[in-house]
């Protein structure tokens, strides 16, 4: 931010007399601080435990291809083949990409499965046969809803979800 400190100036003119305030002391400041106006408000119960600063990286699953990486909500992975586990949840390195761009660039090992909101919320069980089909895939499957990655808390626990 620009500093607008002016150059030292010599002024030979006399100022009109201006009243000088009494200097504040540590004691007078303590007296001013003693009565907080918040004291008259209703007491709040013990606040919820203060959480760490919100972090989307900390609250997500990281996917990376060795050069780029992206993130999806936790519990959004429906299936992770054993030979692709190294692409999941390692320290983010390389360039961060939006989910859509990352998906397009990595369709060789990454795909999506559309789920309804009720399936994601666990209100409706995911069809067992459908879930079995995922296990046969050689690609990582990410649950999506309306083209956006979504966490899944299905009543039908799939092997991928159980392993998390």
């Amino acid at each position, binding site marked *: *931010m*620009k*500093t*607008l*400190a*002016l150059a*030292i100036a*010599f*002024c*030979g*003119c*006399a*100022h009109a*007399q*201006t*009243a*000088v*305030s009494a*200097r*504040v*002391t*540590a004691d007078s*400041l303590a007296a*001013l*601080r003693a*009565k907080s*106006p*918040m004291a008259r*408000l*209703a*007491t*709040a*119960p013990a*606040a*919820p435990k*203060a959480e*760490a*600063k*919100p*972090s*989307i*990286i900390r609250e997500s699953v990281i996917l990376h291809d060795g050069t780029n990486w992206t993130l*999806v*909500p*936790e519990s959004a992975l429906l299936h992770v083949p054993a030979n692709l586990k190294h692409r999941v949840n390692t320290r*983010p390195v390389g360039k*961060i*990409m*939006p*989910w*859509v761009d990352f998906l397009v660039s990595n369709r060789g090992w990454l795909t999506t499965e559309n789920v309804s*909101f009720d399936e*994601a919320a666990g209100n409706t069980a995911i069809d067992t046969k459908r879930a079995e089909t995922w296990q046969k895939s050689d690609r990582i499957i990410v649950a999506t*809803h309306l*083209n*956006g*990655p*979504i*966490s899944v*808390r299905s009543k039908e626990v799939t092997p991928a979800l159980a392993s998390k």
Partner: protein
Amino acid sequence: MKTLALLFAAVTACPADSYVNFIRQKQQDSNVVWDMPVPQQGAAPSALLLETSGALFQLFTINETSQTDYLLDQKLVGTYLPSAAVKVTTLDPYEKVTRTRVDKPFTVEIEIGGLMANPSAPAEANQVRLERHLGSYEGESHTLDASALIHSTPAETALLDTNTLTRLEFSASSVPSKDPLKAKGEEHFTVFSAGSGELGNTQLATGFVQVWPVATGEIKGIEPGQEVRFDSPALELILHDLYPRSDTHLILYKGEGIHGQELATLQSYSLDQDHSQSTVIPVDSLDKHIVDDGTYTLALVTDTVFGRDLLAEMVTFVIHRNIHVNAMQVDMTEHVTP
């Protein structure tokens, strides 16, 4: 079924390819987390159902180079959720940031709306929680991580349970410091939803005030009571923590104290910036204003929006230069006529 039009601002402070933005929606009843498929700039409607306890929308951005994520904004939307607004005002009319001096008063106004006063409704429908956080600037810095501060343990907490404007008048700031008069930092006032879990930690509104220290100073080069017989000494002004907008003067008075004749301003230093400052200034023009012997006083003062304050103890000194003849001896012998 409700849809919510959500506007978000793109990161404009840095080039678009330096950051990647994500909007995350967290449903408060089902705990479903959904990342909205949105472009890096623009607006999009939220397509998920609005649940009873609402949805938390968070806008994050991630720096491509440092891999660091930042929460730019968040909004909690729901059928039971109240609205809140926080406004802080001080004596300083500076428009870029609300600021004050540690020993000066400021006012916090909190306006709450949408509370239901219905015992059967969720807690977050009937009351909100006000938190006061105090943060100090470290070293020479004049910024701090506001998000981290707001999510730390508050200095004070209170409940607000009526749809009204609450006005809190603080006589001074409580930003902590080893020397209370030299405190510098920020006070943040944040309204949170009163529910539990993440909902209880969701802020509805926030406001803050920047706090600067009380300035002090020293007049070096001359001592109180000093008698000056020859050239006046060269002076030096040591100025500590001048208020960001201030005019500081060294004024010469005739006589003792500052109630006598004001002869001249020997030196001035003006500041108009976003942070306090300490500096050293030489003064060498004392003799130009002192003609007669007598008593004089130097006063180091600073003018701010809060008034005129004395930065150091006044220095009263004496000029004693003229030669006074008390007796005279004359040799008359050359004038005697034989």
